[in-house]
């Protein structure tokens, strides 16, 4: 699903956020990405989502080399990916329903199909009764779950999550991780960046550790 071949990322100022990183996430696999803050977790996820572009090596997504893919083709690659942000990036001037429907509207689904899929996604995150409310009235955990519903509504092949539990208490964090495992169980590849070692060590998934932009030894967590 994702393959990094000696990938480096150097920012215009000269700072090298990632150096010679090689890793692979298979189809249907779930893994955690961890490391101290500034280790390059966010940069790695941004490279996958083509928000930032690699400056060295090769990057493959779904078998396609996207290292130097043109700007016009980026949107179509992004539609294969559901991205969950720490600050969830919801649009506060529209209802929960409209927020979750956005990826479907962008892909041009018909009206009935949008309604069906949005309700299915909201049902999975347990917010079916909140579809008509505005995100501002929701709690932090609920907002994060709306973000997750939006990320999965398009049935993406890959879920990326950048510190999805950063603002949540331990119980809500476990709930959110449980959701990711749920999607992973139906075949979605999942890559979660988190510095919450306590949380991820309790889950049985591979952990990729970054240290100052370099790959640490992989840990077989929970084994």
């Amino acid at each position, binding site marked *: 699903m994702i393959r990094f071949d000696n990938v480096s990322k150097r920012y215009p100022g000269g700072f090298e956020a990632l150096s010679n990183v090689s890793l692979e996430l*298979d189809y249907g696999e779930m893994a955690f990405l961890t490391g101290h803050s500034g280790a390059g977790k966010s940069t790695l996820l941004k490279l996958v989502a083509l*928000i930032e572009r690699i400056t060295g090596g090769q990057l493959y997504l779904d078998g396609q080399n996207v290292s130097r893919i043109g700007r016009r083709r980026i949107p179509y690659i992004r539609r*294969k*990916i559901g991205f969950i942000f720490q600050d969830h*990036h919801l*649009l506060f001037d529209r209802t929960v329903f409209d927020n979750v429907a*956005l990826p479907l509207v962008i892909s041009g689904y018909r009206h009935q199909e949008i309604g069906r899929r949005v309700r299915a996604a909201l049902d999975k995150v347990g917010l079916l009764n909140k579809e008509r409310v505005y995100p501002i009235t929701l709690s932090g955990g609920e907002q994060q779950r709306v973000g997750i519903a939006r990320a999965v509504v398009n049935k993406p092949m890959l879920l990326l999550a950048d510190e999805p539990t950063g603002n949540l208490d331990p119980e809500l964090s476990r709930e959110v991780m449980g959701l990711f495992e749920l999607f992973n169980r139906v*075949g979605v590849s999942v890559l979660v960046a988190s510095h919450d070692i306590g949380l991820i060590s309790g889950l049985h998934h591979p952990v990729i550790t970054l240290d100052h932009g370099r790959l640490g030894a992989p840990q077989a967590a929970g084994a």
Partner: protein
Amino acid sequence: MNRRTGNSRQRARFAWPETLRRALSPRTWLRRHAQVALESLGRLSRNPLAGLMTAAVIGIALALPAGLYAMLENLQRLSGGWEDQAGLSVFLGQDVTESAAQQLAGTLDAWPEVDAVTLVTPAEALAEFSRHAGFADVLDSLEDNPLPAVLLVTPVESHSTPATAAALQQRLQDLPETELAQLDLQWLQRLGAMLDMAKRGVLIVSALLALAVLLVVGNTIRLEILNRREEIVVIKLIGATNGFIRRPFLYSGVWYGSFGAVIAWLMVQGGFFILAEPAQRLAMLYQSDFRLETLPLLLLAVLLTGGILLGLLGSWLAVGRHLDAIEPA
């Protein structure tokens, strides 16, 4: 890290082909455009005052040239009505008898540069004058008919241009029976030339005001883009193409242009309605049944076309400049 689930193959089917097929179907395309057009309209209606103000500025900018042009068209129509009855008037001396005038008319008719000659005898001229209100009493009080015989000479087409008609006028003036040979067309030609110049002037004003409309729409759309910056970032992140992001702004431009055009149309129609009555009264004083009028449907069509094109172009320019600069980071 090598756990492949049975679902992954089935999942892969969802990705490329279906997205592409959906994106390329004409029904999808139409549905999307209808959706976006309505969405843009809805967005405008949520802030009606600001939208109305922009549309009003566009309306005024469109109404000015449209109104001026319609006014000139009316003047041209009015003067065009006079042109075919115009020619040269040859006023004969008081001592020329009617039979001599008749004979002269015959002679002139044979000239190659003359198309037709009509004799208006003093009696006929007097009769025509008496028909006009107010003149009858004055004429009755006169002992003699003061009016001379007049030959109305219509030149052939090759002698209707200012230069050739002037030569004919000179030749008629030189006849011993002539008191005065007058070229009736001259002032009309001058008026025509002035109208032509005024039309060019309106063209220049139109170009400047079109530029103003472009700037107004461009600036309005630019502010809209900046206001929705966060939203643009989010939908770029979840896979919106530039075309998808551009579309609602282009439709906003189209709506501003359309509403501006309708406002301009109402202004021009209203202006003409206000002017119609005094213009008709003025025309009556000149014994004319001239009416000030516009062609409402044609005017609306022209204004709408212009407004929509300018709105689209203005928003296109703004979107092109500002949208690329907004990228998620």
